[in-house]
């Protein structure tokens, strides 16, 4: 049984790593359709990654070891995060190693390494990107934590699988704290994953970019790993959201049938979530960078409001 648990665990990780670029491809596809463009294929991100792996890496002359190590650390952190998040099953062995707070810490580790690597070459854009990324991070991170606290208070645990399991045992009920935290979480997801309105993943317009500015000096396999890690991050965030807001259908045992249902449902939920994400991105305009802190401060306040409402009304 124990061995089987680990097999399910590894399958979950492999699924996340493999599906993440496809999920990004799906979001891009939806966005293209919504904007009346002809869409690239679902596997386009994979083609990009494969192309990058084959190229020769060009590295700036004064790049240090930190610069070359960072892509691996960021990728490793994102894969570990995928192992911690209950995406298909709640009773997985590795999820014990980190609860939701540690998960937020892990995402912060990735962000810090990404920013340090961007500062390593010492270009104007790199440091600018690092500063902006950290600015977004320090507002988004507490907002995400407060969102998780709301559920922690309700289910008196900070373990994500436990939250998902206990919530999925209840009937769905729309309560005010849920609404506030859902808005906050969506805003954090947009900001943390460099989506419109905070950042635009499809631009290299120098003065507005954040995430792309961090990756500017990377090429070939390092860039491929960074892109893959970014896709995994989006996938992870989507899975966190699904686990705490709509966990119904997640496998609480490792019976093959419930696992199969869980994987199918996860696929459906992700399709809907990806389409929703594309819709938000299409309907909103990119904010000026100065406005991004206000956007995130709003997210933080929404999360805190959710916490207060939960404590005041118990709902």
């Amino acid at each position, binding site marked *: 049984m124990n061995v089987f648990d680990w097999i399910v665990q590894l399958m979950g990780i492999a699924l996340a790593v493999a599906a993440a670029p496809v999920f990004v491809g799906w979001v891009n596809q939806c966005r293209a359709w919504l904007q009346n463009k002809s869409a690239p294929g679902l596997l386009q991100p994979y083609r990009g990654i494969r192309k990058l792996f084959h190229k*020769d890496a060009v590295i700036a002359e004064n790049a240090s070891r930190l610069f070359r190590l960072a892509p691996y650390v960021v990728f490793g952190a994102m894969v*570990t995060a995928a192992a911690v998040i209950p995406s298909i099953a709640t009773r997985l062995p590795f999820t014990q190693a980190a*609860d939701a707070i*540690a998960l937020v810490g892990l995402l912060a580790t990735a962000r810090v390494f990404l920013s340090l690597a961007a500062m390593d070459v010492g270009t*104007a854009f790199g440091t600018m990107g*690092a500063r902006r990324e950290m600015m977004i991070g320090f507002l988004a991170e507490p907002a995400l934590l407060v969102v998780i606290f709301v559920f922690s*208070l309700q289910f008196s645990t*900070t*373990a994500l699988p436990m939250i998902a399991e206990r919530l999925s045992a209840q009937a769905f009920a729309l309560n005010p704290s849920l609404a506030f935290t859902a808005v906050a979480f969506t805003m954090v997801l947009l900001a943390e994953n460099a989506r419109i309105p905070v950042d635009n993943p499809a631009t290299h317009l120098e003065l507005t970019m954040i995430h792309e500015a961090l990756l500017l000096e990377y090429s070939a396999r390092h860039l491929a790993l960074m892109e893959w890690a970014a896709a995994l991050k989006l996938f992870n965030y989507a899975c966190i959201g699904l686990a705490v807001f709509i966990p119904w259908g997640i496998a609480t045992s490792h019976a093959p049938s419930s696992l199969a249902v869980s994987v199918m449902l996860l696929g459906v939920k992700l399709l809907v979530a990806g389409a929703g994400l594309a819709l938000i991105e299409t309907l909103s305009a990119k904010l000026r960078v100065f406005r991004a802190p206000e956007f995130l401060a709003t997210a933080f306040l929404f999360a805190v409001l959710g916490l207060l409402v939960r404590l005041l009304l118990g709902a």
Partner: protein
Amino acid sequence: MGAGAFVSYGFNSPLTVCLLLLTAWCTVALAGLVRPLSIAFVGRTLFPVGAFCGAALAFVAATSLRHPSEQLVLPIGLPDLPVHLRLDALSSVFLILLGAASAGISIFAAGYFRRGEGAAPGLLCLQYHLFLASMGFVFLADDAYAFMLAWETMALSSYFLVTTQHRIPEIRHAGFLYLLMAHLGAIAILLSFGILQGGSWHFTFDAMRAAHLAPNWSTTAFCLALIGFGAKAGLVPLHVWLPEAHPAAPSPVSALMSGVMLKTALYGMIRVSFDLMGQPLWWWGLVPLSLGLFSALYGVVFAAAQTDMKRLLAYSSIENIGILFTGLGLAIVFAGVEMRAAAALTLIAVMYHAMNHAFMKSLLFLGTGAVLHATGERNLGHLGGLIHRMPWVTWLTLIGVLAIAGLPPLNGFVSEWLLLQSFLFAYKVPHPFINMLLPLGAALLALAAALAGYVMVKFFGVIFLGQPREPALQRANDAGFAERLGLVWLAVGCVLLGFLPTHFISMFGIVTQQLNLGGLPASDAPWWLLVPIPERQSSYAPLVFFAAIAIVVVLAIVSVRLFYHQRIRKGAAWDCGFGGLNSRMQDTAEGFGQPIRHLFQPLFAIVRELPTAFDSQPKYRLEIGDRIWRALYQPLGALVRRVADKVAWLQQGRIATYLLYSFVTLVVLLALML
């Protein structure tokens, strides 16, 4: 404290050994005067001996943790006022902190003081080791006299260390401010002890434990203790001396002051509120809690705006002191409403964070010391790119940076995790509104922790990464052997504290048991898995966590090598193809702090001079002041000056007048006697 738990040992009791080690520190201190000008003697012999004493002290204190408390009465000092000493679990924990952190700092100092830092090395050695010994005596003291004696020795010896380079007026000024605040604090502590003795006029801590105070009096005593210890700790608004004094001292001394000395204040607060007071009232906790939260945010926001690397770290110390006092306040609230398990968890988190901060902050201060020696530069705006020239210092500092930014799997994360976990108990406090406001503290704490990440990326990125901002930096050399050893010691401490949380938590659990709060509930989790509250099922396993990341990293590297290639070409930086890149185009420290300045503008008093387009010699100036200094201290200083002017009227300068004063005083005294 459980009565009757005292066992008298012979000469080999832990307390006696601790006492001997502290005496050894005093001896090392005096030995510095034998050959005060010999750097070789002081650096190669005395400081390593001091470091050894520190490591031994930590070891002895660690072994004594599981022993019952011990007391000792030394018949020295004034007649009829013997010195009472006592070694219990709380003292042991702080002695471990002192010993272990100072061991690393002393080894570093052995290499660092080779240039004498503007004072005779022997003199530095005297003050440095007296400082260490006095901190040890603070943790061992068991009566108010001994405590105050050690406390004042600590303040004075550190004052002389701060003013090592006393020829610089700013440093003299910083030292004066430090001495002033230290003494105001000491008066408050003395008055607090005066109330705590409860009319028995016995100033031993045992008498204070036995005294029963009316709530009004105990509240007054608590407030005085908070003022006194808060001034030592640098709690906002009593923090003004800290960002001046800590950077002024030589780096190993800054490390000692930030890493260890600030914890004496925390020790004092825990001692007074949980041991001497017996049962604290729950609402007292709200004061340190709110001041702590404010300090945490205030400290970290100001740290983000600094351009001097040591000042930045000093402000970061204010942040960490804020976190510690937040936890302390929360523990008092929990203890006051009889939520003992929650109080124990919170207090364990506080002690854990104190231990963590001792290692990480010392590591960072020593790192800045190494940079300062290699480059002669403290201003972040003139540094950069040192990762190529100083790899040892860079990578060891990176460990400290990641730890203090609260990133798993290092140590800073563990204590913040525990503190957040204890905040999640707060909604059970049986007081309406308060139980709803308290969990918001967790949100603010999370904000402060995330901001610390910002500050640390700025600190590390601007100093060590990028291109060197000055040509002179190309000639910087890495730290010497002794310095590296000291840094490695502290970095290993950070890693161990991060990887083995269950071990350290059970250690701190002994303290909470002795303080009648009970330990953490027993759990059947394996040693590598941290489950502080079994029914909550929140767990954290740093080793597994680290192993997972490491495995993925190795797998990724290996599979890239297997399936693709490892070809690398070196070229000029791309930078969007702009070209003509130079080191002035990187973000400066001011630039990196700009979003924070913009966002938290109301906190800062900013003076800015911007050049216009028509200036022939454009000048840019930015000064970031502390609003609290202007709003609180300057009016206070003006008031003192005005009162002093009025009082000066008494000083007539004529003997006859002064004789008249004496006569009037005598008459008044006689009238009072009769």
